[in-house]
């Protein structure tokens, strides 16, 4: 099978991303054994892949937890404020408008906030 460079690179990428099924893998290994150009492409891709793996970073568990706690501490009061404002606005609408209109207004406001 003749493979152009772009096709070869895509196939190798699929292999590196573990996206080939068993049959495709067999074909891939066969290509590696029989096609010298493909083998050269693979060697270059593999080198790049291995070297770029060095950029993967893992935070220490303690640091990760501290950041999570900090996020939650910042997020919760914000969420609390939002709830209070939401309840206040709902009560305000209920006081101003006749009963059957209120659910319609609330739904409309919800739709608006989703589309934002």
């Amino acid at each position, binding site marked *: 099978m003749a493979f152009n*460079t*772009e096709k070869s*690179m895509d196939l190798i*990428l699929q292999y*590196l*991303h573990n996206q080939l099924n068993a049959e495709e893998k067999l074909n891939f290994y066969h290509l590696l054994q029989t096609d010298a150009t493909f083998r050269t492409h693979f060697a*270059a*891709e593999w*080198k*790049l*892949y291995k*070297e*770029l*793996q*060095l*950029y*993967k*970073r*893992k*935070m220490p568990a303690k*640091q*990760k937890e501290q*950041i*999570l706690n*900090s*996020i*939650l501490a*910042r*997020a919760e009061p*914000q*969420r609390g404020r939002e709830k209070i404002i939401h309840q206040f606005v709902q009560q305000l609408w209920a006081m101003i408008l006749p009963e059957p209109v209120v659910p319609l207004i609330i739904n409309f406001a919800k739709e608006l906030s*989703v589309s934002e």
Partner: protein
Amino acid sequence: MDFKKLYTLYADSVYSYIYFKIKDRYLAEDILQETFLAVYNNLNHLPAIRSPKAWLLAIAQHKIADRLRKEKNQPFYTDSLADSSFHATEQIEENLFLEELLQRLDETSRQIIYGIYVEQLSYKELAAIFNLPEGTVKSKAYYARAKLKRWLEADKDGI
């Protein structure tokens, strides 16, 4: 998926991505917090998201841009980047030569390469992150990969 689970699964990936772009550990931690804070406030969108990782990285991408825009004119930002003691130590651990080659690529191509090889993202996911057509991502990836391999090969041959 709840927020804590999402954080546990993806915090390292998001942190790596931010650090790859800005090369400052403290700023990266800060932007990580801002990213997940935004995620927390938008958790209702999660069920409709196909790739949580791509979604998180897109948010991180916006947060990085926001932060860099805000700090552009502040002297401490320039100073922190000019302070090479931390960066030097960190970069020694990495492949300095590859770093140099990556710097020769344009910003988007560099991040596409990172997304492909480090985070194993698809062209589709990368297109969503960078708000680019999938074809553009694919062609940028193709040329960037070809360039990097050529440069690496040239180095091996001592050119």
